[in-house]
């Protein structure tokens, strides 16, 4: 990744620029040609025709077709579009082919380039580096110089690369059900502008998701200036409304709190999934892991009160399952104990069982004042946030561990309210034009708003939808416009902490998509101004002119815009609780339960529903794939006599849905959790019609949880494809757990577990070993939070296919690195609130590998640098190695899993990694292609590969730096140091396989932690 940071500011920057610069238009270079030819094809119309034919058929069929056959049709359409796509991507027009007259600078076939860009989600952003091969982006890494990820990525950013090439993405403009062109729309937009200028923008409404692009915000501001009566509504199903409203209650102005775990010794998470929720989770995870370091003076201690198991709860030293509504009581109890002024007097009966623990916690917080913080989750109501602010103020955390930033004044502070307002206005007939930019309200709005009906209102004469997919909203729209993926477009992203990154296109739009700012530009009378200019224009006004070019290039190169130091924001006022109306804690009626909504851990609010990687990524804790389920506590399941996969009817405020049950240890009794994002009807071939649509239960006044859920068991069964069927460790000890105390004082052995003597009748190395390199990996279980980023990074790097639900049901998933999850604890209580351990398991690259011994054809052998190598084209598929692997990390292509047909996906493949066929075994290679790349670079520069130079895909993605890879012969390498640690142990050491991958004991705060500390 570092190699992208070339010092010279005057190097050509992006492929796009580079091509414009390096080759004259008539001498198109062949390298970039295939991705440029798409637009050319579009110009000469051939693509247009192809696409038109396909889409015309599509639209014709879509209208007046029942739902199932409509879905079926989407499949066909997707396929035909994919063909159109390859016509654009693969075929080179016969004319005007000229070889590299002079090879464009930096473009060396086989050598990847890295470009900085950024992705945004929920109004926050992550800085990224994108690996590009000959103009094809094929892998996403985190941008080390971006404060949010510090080089790490979450599962979503990793999977964006698949979304980019998704053949189901919207590929043509559709007008009133017929295929149309952007040019025609732009003409329409110009007329619209003229008309709306006349009427000051009356009846014009713009609906977006949370916007964090300064350029777009500026465009909207300018639009509002020109059309004062136009309105901007933004709605994101997973939003921070409560936080802002809470701040408004307590501080008088909507502010967004961000938490700095690095500054705290004690963290209390009140239904706050600090580690797993949104891009900020990356920042929290890294800080958390760093503060849990055993060498750290006072390792951070985490308390979690939450209704449903989350990564944060799993990482917590003390986790208390409480209903979502009871979190307020916990906060109030803490507030009283800490003598917060205005702390409410609430009936704490329902949290009685935890009173002692809360008291103890309060005392601890008291003693840790200034080093403690209370985090309140976005899924908690405003009152709790207000209370949280008061608590933090009492703990002296405000301005230290908790910082407050004013929300954007232009954006609606309460998105739900703003959406409600929009709907009401449409119903009132005050709206004739709705511009939906990148949002999908028909699917993702609370059910009670009946957005679909509203948008069908005949007063709305122009519903314009810009989206990556022609989705549920697109189906209603008069105009549907294909949106450009962020990897195809210019733009900018501001993260929650204020850092701004520029987005630059890695590839010309595959499917003639354009961005929201292109559309807004059209309304602003800037038709046809290229996106790059729009962004530059804005930043010209923000960055000092004298060295604008330099800072612009620096921004593009580093991925972070060098902003002039902002003047320090005025300290926020002290929070007051007098204005807060405390809700009366309603005791749940008998037979009624609390319904809790959560964004899906892998497809979020549904926007990634068509992403196969994310669908097949086992969801943390449940290891569920390809589905969502109603999570119920073991206690509730016992009480109702329901079991896994049994279908239940969920009845919530007059809406009902059917959902399969999944029993989730650690779920608060009496609460049922459903995840958003499934049950899509127009997501694409992958995402259509799987799972159930939880939005149907969602209400504008109960966005995250609400009482009064009825749960009626049925006889039905829906098979759920979970990848781990056994929860406990069966008295084995794959994950060793100890305490910080033990680690600090006892030192050797104790925290380590008894060592098995490893003697062998055989000589160590039968064969000459390399004197330079012995590759090895260490995985620090004390850092791993189980997020699964490693799994999906590996999938992206190594061309790992997805296999689909039916194959996962027969446990044939192909992930090279899996994250095992074990529950621990005694008796039935353990099921109700177990301790959770995570363990990423890649290939162990055993020195004495059982798999090698039994392979009849030398398809798996040992390299002199200690790699356990698979030779795919030598494998005949006896699967003996898979049987004989004690770690079961070998994956077999039982069928032809790799999709070699879909052209878009062919572009996606990593050219450095063999694509496997049916009938061969595969497994983790330690990213041997990266090792070899480093080796070649070192050779060219006449040096040895550095001990830490090679970074595997899983290691690069890991938000907590739990995975460390390197050269064991280099005693200075991080991996050597870690393996020298007394916490180091080998999995199933007693088998004498001598793994190269080792683990570091997990540490807890023992005493208060649930189970006694265990020593080996």
């Amino acid at each position: 990744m570092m190699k992208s940071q070339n010092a010279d500011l005057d190097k050509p920057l992006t492929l796009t620029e580079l091509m414009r610069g390096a080759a004259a238009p008539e001498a198109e270079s062949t390298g970039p040609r295939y991705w440029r030819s798409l637009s050319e094809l579009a110009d000469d119309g051939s693509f247009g025709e192809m696409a038109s034919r396909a889409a015309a058929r599509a639209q014709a069929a879509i209208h007046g077709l029942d739902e199932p056959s409509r879905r079926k049709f989407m499949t066909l359409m997707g396929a035909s579009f994919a063909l159109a796509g390859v016509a654009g991507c693969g075929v080179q027009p016969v004319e005007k082919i000229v070889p590299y007259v002079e090879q464009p600078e930096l473009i060396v076939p086989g050598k990847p380039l890295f470009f900085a860009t950024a992705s945004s989600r929920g109004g926050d952003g992550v800085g990224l580096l994108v690996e590009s091969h000959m103009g094809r982006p094929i892998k996403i890494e985190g941008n080390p110089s971006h404060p949010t990820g510090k080089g790490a990525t979450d599962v979503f950013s990793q999977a964006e690369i698949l979304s980019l090439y998704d053949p189901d993405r919207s590929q043509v403009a559709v007008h009133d059900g017929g295929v149309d062109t952007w040019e025609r729309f732009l003409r329409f937009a110009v007329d619209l502008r003229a008309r709306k200028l006349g009427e000051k923008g009356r009846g014009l409404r713009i609906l977006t998701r949370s916007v964090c692009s300064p350029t777009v915000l500026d465009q909207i501001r300018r639009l509002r200036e020109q059309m004062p009566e136009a309105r901007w509504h933004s709605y994101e199903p997973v939003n921070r409304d409560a936080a802002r409203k809470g701040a408004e209650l307590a501080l008088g102005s909507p502010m967004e709190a961000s938490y700095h775990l690095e500054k705290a010794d004690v963290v209390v998470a009140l239904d706050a999934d600090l580690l797993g929720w949104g891009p900020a989770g990356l920042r929290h995870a890294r800080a958390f892991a760093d503060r849990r370091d055993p060498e750290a003076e006072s390792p951070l201690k985490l308390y979690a009160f939450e209704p449903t198991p989350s990564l944060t709860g799993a990482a917590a030293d003390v986790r208390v399952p409480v209903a979502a509504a009871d979190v307020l009581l916990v906060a109030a109890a803490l507030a009283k104990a800490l003598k917060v002024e205005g702390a409410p007097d609430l009936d704490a009966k329902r949290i009685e069982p935890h009173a002692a623990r809360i008291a103890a916690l309060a005392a601890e917080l008291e003693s840790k004042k200034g080093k403690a913080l209370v985090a309140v989750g976005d899924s908690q109501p405003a009152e709790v946030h207000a209370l949280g602010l008061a608590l933090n103020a009492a703990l002296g955390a405000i301005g230290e561990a908790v910082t407050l930033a004013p929300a954007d004044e232009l954006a609606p502070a309460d998105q739900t309210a703003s959406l409600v307002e929009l709907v009401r206005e449409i119903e009132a007939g005050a709206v004739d034009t709705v511009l939906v930019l990148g949002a999908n309200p028909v699917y993702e709005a609370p059910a009670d708003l009946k957005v679909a009906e509203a948008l069908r209102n005949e007063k709305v004469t122009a519903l314009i939808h810009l989206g990556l997919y022609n989705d549920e909203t697109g189906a209603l729209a008069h105009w549907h416009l294909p949106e450009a993926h962020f990897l195809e477009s210019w733009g900018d992203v501001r993260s929650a902490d204020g850092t701004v990154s520029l987005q630059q296109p890695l590839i010309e739009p595959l499917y003639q998509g354009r961005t929201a700012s292109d559309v807004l530009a059209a309304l602003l009378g800037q038709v046809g101004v290229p996106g790059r200019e729009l962004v530059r224009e804005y930043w010209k006004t923000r960055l000092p002119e004298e060295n604008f070019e330099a800072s612009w290039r620096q921004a593009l190169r580093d991925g972070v815009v060098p902003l002039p130091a902002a003047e320090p924001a005025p300290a926020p006022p002290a929070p007051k609780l007098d204005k807060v109306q405390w809700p009366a804690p309603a005791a749940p009626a008998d037979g009624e339960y609390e319904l809790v909504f959560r964004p899906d851990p892998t497809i979020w609010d549904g926007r990634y529903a068509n992403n196969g990687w994310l669908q097949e990524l086992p969801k943390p804790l449940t290891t569920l794939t390809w589905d969502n389920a109603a999570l119920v506590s073991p206690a509730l399941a016992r009480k109702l006599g329901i079991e896994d996969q049994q279908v239940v009817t969920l009845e919530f405020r007059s809406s009902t849905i059917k959902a399969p049950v999944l029993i989730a240890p650690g779920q608060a009794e009496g609460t049922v959790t459903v995840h958003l994002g499934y049950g899509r009807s127009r997501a694409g071939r992958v995402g259509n019609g799987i799972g159930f649509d939880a939005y149907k239960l969602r209400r504008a006044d109960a966005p995250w949880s609400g009482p009064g859920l009825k749960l009626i068991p049925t006889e039905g069964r829906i098979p759920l494809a979970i990848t781990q069927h056994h929860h406990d460790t069966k008295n084995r000890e794959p994950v060793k757990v100890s305490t910080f105390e033990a680690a600090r004082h006892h030192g050797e052995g104790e925290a380590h577990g008894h060592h098995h003597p490893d003697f062998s009748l055989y000589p160590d190395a039968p064969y000459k070993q390399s004197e330079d390199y012995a590759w090895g990996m260490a995985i620090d279980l004390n850092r791993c939070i189980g997020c699964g980023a490693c799994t999906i990074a590996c999938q992206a790097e190594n061309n790992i296919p997805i296999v689909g639900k039916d194959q996962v049901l027969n446990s044939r998933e192909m992930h090279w690195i899996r994250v095992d999850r074990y529950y621990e604890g005694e008796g039935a209580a353990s099921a109700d609130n177990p301790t959770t351990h995570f363990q990423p398991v890649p290939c162990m690259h055993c020195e004495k590998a059982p798999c090698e011994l039994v392979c009849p054809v030398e398809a798996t052998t040992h390299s002199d640098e200690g790699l356990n190598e698979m030779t795919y084209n030598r494998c005949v598929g006896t699967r003996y190695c898979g049987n004989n692997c004690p770690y079961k990390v070998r994956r077999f292509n039982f069928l032809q899993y790799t999709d070699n047909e879909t052209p878009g996906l062919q572009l996606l493949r990593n050219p450095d990694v063999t694509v496997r066929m049916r009938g061969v075994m595969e497994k983790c290679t330690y990213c041997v292609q990266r090792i070899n790349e480093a080796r070649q670079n070192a050779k060219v520069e006449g040096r040895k590969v550095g001990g830490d130079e090679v970074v595997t895909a899983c290691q690069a993605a890991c938000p907590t730096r739990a995975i460390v890879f390197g050269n064991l012969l280099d005693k200075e390498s991080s991996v050597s140091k870690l393996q020298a640690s007394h916490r180091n142990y080998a999995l199933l050491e007693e088998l004498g396989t001598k793994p190269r991958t080792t683990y570091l004991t997990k540490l807890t705060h023992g005493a208060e932690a649930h189970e006694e500390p265990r020593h080996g």
Partner: protein
Amino acid sequence: MADHQHDDGRPPVLAPGHTYATVTSTISDIVLTRPLDWRWAVGMGIGSSLLLVFGAAVSMLLFKGVGIWGVNAPVMWGWAIINFVWWVGIGHAGTLISAILLLLKQQWRTSINRFAEAMTLFAVACAGMFPLLHMGRPWKFFWMMPYPSTMALLPQWRSPLVWDVFAVSTYATVSALFWYVGLIPDLATLRDRAKNKWVAMIYGSLALGWRGSARHWSRYKSAYMLLAALATPLVVSVHTVVSLDFAASVIPGWHATIFPPYFVAGAIFSGFAMVVTLCVPLRAWYGLKDFITIRHLDNMAKIILATGMIVGYGYAMEFFIAWYSGNPYEEFLLLDARPFGTYSNAYRCMILCNVGIPQLLWVPAIRRNPVLLWIISIFVNIGMWLERYVIVVTSLSQDFLPSSWADYNPTIWDVATFLGTIGLFTFLLFLFVRVLPAIAVAEMRELVHEKHHEHAAAGAAVAEAHGENR
């Protein structure tokens, strides 16, 4: 000797009153003159229709991939390997009867060895199918054989699978040779008795011009004896190697030193059961009761009983070692997962069929009752299939890391493939009884001769009788 037999009340190995001529005609007429009968037609019909099923299953397999079976991770071996071991095991009885009993000069082997050898060949043919078909890329099977490959690679000699390739192919070759050598004189007989010129020419060419010269006989006998001497350790080695496929691994429930002896015993156990299963109807339908007498059934029953006990001992030892070794993985698998886990039913049926039901054979009356014996033999066949199922599936589905445990379920294609090989077996068997003498004629004549001698010179015979009767 005959007197002795009658004294201890055992039925004779050959019904009295037979001469060279009667022996010859009775057996060879089955092939040459006997008309097609409906039982044969029905059997052949079933066999060949199942053979079609086999064709379908294999085509599907080659077209779609091994994923059409139930195999998964961690249970990467399923029915295919189970069936392979089962068929190979069945094969062993044939070689054992023809080779070991020959060396031990057991007269009673004579009338069943030809048939048993045929069974061996066909069983091995069926067994051989599975290792090939279960591969991910079957068309690359020859990579397991030593040949000058462009990749300069020879097989990985440390892999038990390669041992398997050599063991099974050697076994198939030697069995075929042994069988054919035994056939040569009888083919000559058929040649000389054939009425039809073409039939005579076919058998004649297969007989290689055998004319029964004394010098030929002497070389023939030593070659035959040496083949037997070679086949005897071979048959033991083959199932030992098969057992090493499991024993050489690290998987709990596989990684056990008791496997070789207990697999070999199991093989003989199931093999004799299969011989009984096939002999009882055969002797009834083709009037061979004079040659395959109650004595034969009785002896085979005794062997079934004995080997059954050895197998039972094997099960007991697995238990004991699992407990005694203190290896937590072994303990869990053998003391918990197998008897009480997901597959406990298979395990319990196995115990019943292999250890429980054979105990009935202690009763002589049952041993000598063809029908009961036949039913018991069926149970043993089922039990031995279940044994392989238990070994393969339970061990793999719950090995070291609970995180990767998963259950295994066969698909319709697993079943179709298995039935298909049964079809192949039946087909070949029915073909065999129609075109080749199901009993070794020449050896039967020899037996008649010996009997003749015994009657003639009873007194002298007493001395050698001891040697023979041991």
